[in-house]
């Protein structure tokens, strides 16, 4: 092995060590939900003994060093546990666009990766997570059906909305040659948003469950002739090289995310979201819209999705602006509730734009 190659391996290992330390700290934060005191001497001794035993089997590191290192790690975990932190779940691995939205929205929040959208909802409902963030629609791809359905089924409130410009990057592992790329892994939405780019370079699109997950897999498995489409943040997180930024076919590529909480937040909101279904008769939807028209309220989104609990029928998602109409908001919601078959108030919130 040449010196250059050895150094490359060391850099990659350092990357992994930091990734694991971060993951360990995240888990530390989550244990807080299950215990009252931060210090647990018995557990600490267990951890140190175990670390020394494993290091002893490798027979290179001094037990002293191992103990010192793990004590430092435990100390840092305690420090993190000691300050009040708000955990927010997002779908995907670290570096997913949901996490980028969280960082732009509030840097103090701690983003926690979740495998599925339903895990985000469940985590918030059970109190394992304080908040959740989910994408509801994309300017090119349209509504994200699974999330919209969960919004109806679960009992969470929307406390903020974020419109985030999506900047897709083509990423490869640092020792890969861009000339040899043939296959590109990413979430189907991302692949479809970069279709013209993939066509120009004769690249084959391979769907993956998540954009950041594809980047993580690329770094871990180093598949031959492969690249991933993911955020710029993923390049840093997974030690990948950016071949090209902004590869989406349309620059007007925005995803709208909702922040979810168990409790409603009503301080100075700008927007309100509701979901409802109407009885199957002439003018039913019109009657609802009339309420808003008469109150001179501007609707910002109206979308219909099939009602899975009642096939053949539809539910309507409605977002509207709250301005001077705020005073009679309760009255409006009540009259909408009376004219609908199913009615659910999703929340009042502010919406931010990050271009």
């Amino acid at each position, binding site marked *: 092995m040449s010196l250059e190659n050895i150094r490359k391996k060391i850099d990659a290992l350092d990357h992994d060590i930091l990734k694991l330390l971060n993951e360990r700290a995240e888990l530390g934060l989550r244990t807080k939900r299950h215990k009252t005191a931060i210090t647990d001497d018995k557990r600490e001794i267990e951890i140190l003994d175990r670390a020394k035993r494993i290091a002893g089997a490798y027979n290179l590191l001094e037990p002293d060093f191992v103990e010192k290192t793990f004590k430092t790690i435990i100390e840092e975990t305690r420090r993190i546990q000691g300050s009040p932190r708000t955990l927010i779940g997002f779908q995907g691995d670290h570096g997913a666009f949901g996490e980028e939205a969280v960082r732009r929205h509030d840097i103090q929040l701690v983003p926690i990766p979740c495998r599925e959208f339903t895990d985000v909802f469940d985590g918030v409902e059970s109190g394992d997570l304080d908040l959740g963030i989910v994408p509801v629609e994309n300017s090119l791809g349209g509504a994200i059906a699974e999330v919209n359905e969960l919004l109806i089924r679960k009992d969470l409130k929307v406390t903020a909305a974020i419109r985030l410009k999506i900047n897709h990057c083509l990423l490869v592992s640092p020792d890969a040659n*861009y*000339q040899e790329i043939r296959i590109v892994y990413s979430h189907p939405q991302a692949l479809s948003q970069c279709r013209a780019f993939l066509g*120009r*370079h*004769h690249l084959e699109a391979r769907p993956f469950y998540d954009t950041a997950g594809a980047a993580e897999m690329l770094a871990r498995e180093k598949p031959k002739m492969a690249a991933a489409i993911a955020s710029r943040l993923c390049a840093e997180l997974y030690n990948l090289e950016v*071949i*090209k930024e902004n590869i989406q076919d349309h620059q007007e590529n925005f995803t709208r995310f909702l922040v979810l909480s168990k409790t409603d937040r009503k301080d100075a909101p700008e927007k309100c979201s509701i979901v409802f279904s109407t009885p199957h008769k002439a003018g039913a939807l019109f009657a609802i819209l009339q309420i808003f028209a008469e109150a001179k309220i501007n609707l910002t989104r109206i979308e219909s999705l099939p009602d899975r609990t009642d096939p053949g029928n539809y539910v309507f998602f409605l977002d509207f602006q709250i301005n001077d109409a705020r005073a009679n908001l309760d009255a409006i919601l009540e009259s909408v509730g009376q004219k609908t078959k199913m009615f659910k108030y999703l929340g009042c919130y502010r919406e931010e734009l990050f271009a």
Partner: protein
Amino acid sequence: MDNLKLAALKGKKRSVIRVGEIGFGEDFVVIAGPCSVESERQTVEIAQAVKQGGADMLRGGAFKPRTSPYNFQGLGLKGLKILEKAREMTGLPIVSEVLDTRDVSWMCEYVDVLQVGARNMQNFSLLKEVGKTTRPVLLKRGMHSTISEWLNCAEYILNEGNPNIILCERGIRTFETYTRNTLDLSAVAAAKELTFLPVIVDPTHGTGKVSLISPMSLAAVACGADGLIVEVHNHPEAALSDKEQALTPPEFEELSRKIRSLRAFMEALSERPSHGKEEKR
């Protein structure tokens, strides 16, 4: 030249190749910049200097065809990203040489004009590949190619469907050894007689001597060329390639001034009432 089915002038309108706000064949286009992209700092500094000095476009090699395999081969993809940054900071469009057919689609993501260099003039696979794009191609004349061979290479690109070709005379090999090559300015006038494509001149490689660049540039203006491509380096003595033939930014600015004066004179010359009945602009 009977086999130039597409490239021949034969009553066709002279083409204007648009690159951003510039039009080759309409404006006199001055392209300047380093031989090689060496670092972000070097490239951005030179880009700013040549813009200040009156350049319309930036040149810079990311892939370098060097005589020896042990010489600096260019920064590759990293170089392209630096050129993109330089464009972002100065607004100058970019021309850069493509060496490998596998790089053509990637180069198109970064540069405004693809250059096919003198050594690759008759690399027919490369000509076909750039011909499949719509990106303007700067086609340099090979150092041992006849005018006919050169124009047939333009024919290759046209035949693939890309009409955006800019020809570039850069000197040919003769028995003369004092200069690096012999700049063949008669080829400029000849090519303009034979084809409808714009023709520019590279006096840097054509002479290989700093002192000859300015006089040959002016001669190029006088013989009807549509533009120039010159190498400029902020520290020529430290350049990683072609150090003996790069102008400094002040020398370039001085040349640029002379070119503007001569252009004005040439325009006045062609606008004499006896020459045509067009109204004076």
